[in-house]
């Protein structure tokens, strides 16, 4: 009986209290109503976001425009076939208001040479490491390797150039060489390909691997003949992306292959490369026009590779 009365009292006081505070609270929030101002603030913020976003993408548009405007006039067949002109030739051409003769053939061949060598070095190693990481997901030494790979990815390209300098230029070829350049590029490609290989492998359904094993296929054959073909597009994407990344690298090449004025296929000798040539043109006041066309070419190539890689990865997933 008492408890009933008690709870009724409690309920009554609760009710009264709530009711009282209900009235008071309504007054509070309505008095201090500033929702119009807040809405306006929100809209203003939104406007700022839009403006800043537009500002953010403006550089890419400006750069492309600039390259096209200034670079197109220098592009002709010679561009791809002839070697860079010497200063005298360039100076005469500029004075006469003509297109500078010659092209960047030495750069193109040099870049091709070094990228191919770098790929030959990097791709097998990274594929193997990537597969190793995939097969040993939880193990301790696997995580160690993975962390090292991550660190490697963060290393600036100059530093890699220095390392290649020490190992190859001083150590192996006793002089600047394409090999050193390739090694620097290869080290840059490693983390990218390793990571994309591991990710691609992880995405292949495990049933395929098991089907191979159930048929009594030995391990290395499963990898070669079953897994890699299944993950081919993913792997290709990784490889293409890493190539496109190293194509534009200048600093490490400055420290390793130095550049050359002729087309050169000997990897123990200094070689040219497209970004290096751009740097040379930049430093030479007579070759300025060539700067734009070579940059245009370089960017077009890099972008094309990127687009191809994206297409492949989209078709894949």
């Amino acid at each position: 009986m008492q408890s009933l009365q008690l709870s009724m009292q409690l309920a009554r006081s609760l009710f009264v209290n709530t009711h009282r505070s209900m009235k008071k609270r309504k007054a509070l929030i309505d008095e201090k109503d500033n929702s119009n101002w807040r809405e306006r603030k929100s809209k203003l913020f939104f406007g700022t976001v839009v403006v800043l976003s537009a500002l953010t993408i403006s550089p890419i548009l400006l750069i492309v425009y600039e390259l096209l405007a200034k670079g197109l006039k220098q592009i002709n067949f010679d561009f791809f076939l002839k070697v860079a002109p010497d200063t005298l030739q360039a100076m005469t051409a500029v004075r006469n208001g003509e297109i500078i003769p010659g092209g960047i053939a030495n750069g193109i061949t040099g870049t091709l040479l070094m990228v191919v060598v770098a790929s030959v070095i990097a791709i097998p190693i990274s594929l193997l490491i990537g597969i190793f990481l995939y097969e040993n997901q939880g193990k301790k030494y696997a995580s160690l390797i993975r962390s090292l790979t991550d660190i490697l990815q963060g290393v600036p390209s100059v530093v890699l150039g220095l390392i290649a300098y020490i190992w190859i230029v001083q150590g192996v070829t006793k002089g600047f060489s394409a090999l050193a350049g390739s090694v620097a590029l290869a080290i840059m490609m490693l983390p990218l390909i390793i990571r994309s290989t591991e990710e691609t492998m992880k995405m292949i359904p495990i049933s395929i691997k098991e089907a191979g094993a159930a048929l009594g296929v030995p391990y290395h054959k499963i990898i070669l003949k079953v897994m890699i073909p299944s993950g081919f597009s993913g792997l290709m994407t990784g490889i293409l992306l890493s190539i496109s990344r190293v194509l534009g690298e200048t600093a490490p090449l400055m420290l390793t292959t130095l550049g050359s004025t002729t087309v050169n296929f000997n990897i123990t000798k200094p070689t040219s490369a497209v970004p290096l040539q751009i740097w040379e043109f930049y430093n030479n006041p007579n070759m300025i026009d060539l700067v734009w066309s070579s940059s245009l070419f370089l960017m077009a190539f890099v972008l094309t590779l990127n687009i191809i890689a994206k297409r492949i990865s989209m078709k894949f997933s």
Partner: protein
Amino acid sequence: MNDKILQISNPVLSIIDLSISYGEDKYAVKNVSADVKRNAITAIMGPSGCGKSTLLRAINRMHELYPNIHTKGEIKLNEESIYDMSTTKLRRKIGMVFQRPNPFPTMSIYENVIAGYSLNGSKLKKSEKDEIVESSLTDVGLLDEVKDSLNKKGNFLSGGQQQRLCIARTLAFKPDVILMDEPTSALDPLSTAKIEDLLVELKAHYSIILVTHNMSQAARISDNAMFMYLGELVEYDKTKKMFTNPKDSRTEGYLTGKFG
């Protein structure tokens, strides 16, 4: 159709010919009209996909966050159209509790309860804030359980407690209407019972609209019930009447478990 729809005098909320579509012509809610009784619990029931949550979320204009949802029709809160007021004002008068408890994880329990005010930029004195927090937590029966940990973040609370915290957060505004979207479907039976008791207490001061896929819950605690099917409001009546004597065959089919 009119005899299947409850007539109410001095309703707290009036829904007038409301239709909601996704894209141009996929209608989730078709021409619904209903009045909601003051200080009562009104349940909205129906099988999955009948449009009950969509209907509920139109009442506090949540659909405006999603551009491909189109709403037609009118809703009035105490005779004032909800489209005539700003959403910030509206959502202070109509609160919402969601299916999964969603207290703000980076805020303490205290901050969570008062979150409505702080988010709205209200500057209240500490004593005012304390009072609001205390009374809201008392109203949901949580104060004793958390009064020593008000400044801790709420992630140690059980699901049922978290949900009660979310209800307290809504109560802090003393809204006219509380919308509840299957508030207990993610909770265990014990917590569910506690919250159902809480709702029955709360209806003395608030008008509650409760979407539920659990018929027995509707039968247990609601005063009036709407039955929706394929986007239409099929029947709306006092709960007891509807459960014992449904007027529409579809309602009967649902209640007897023939579908849904």
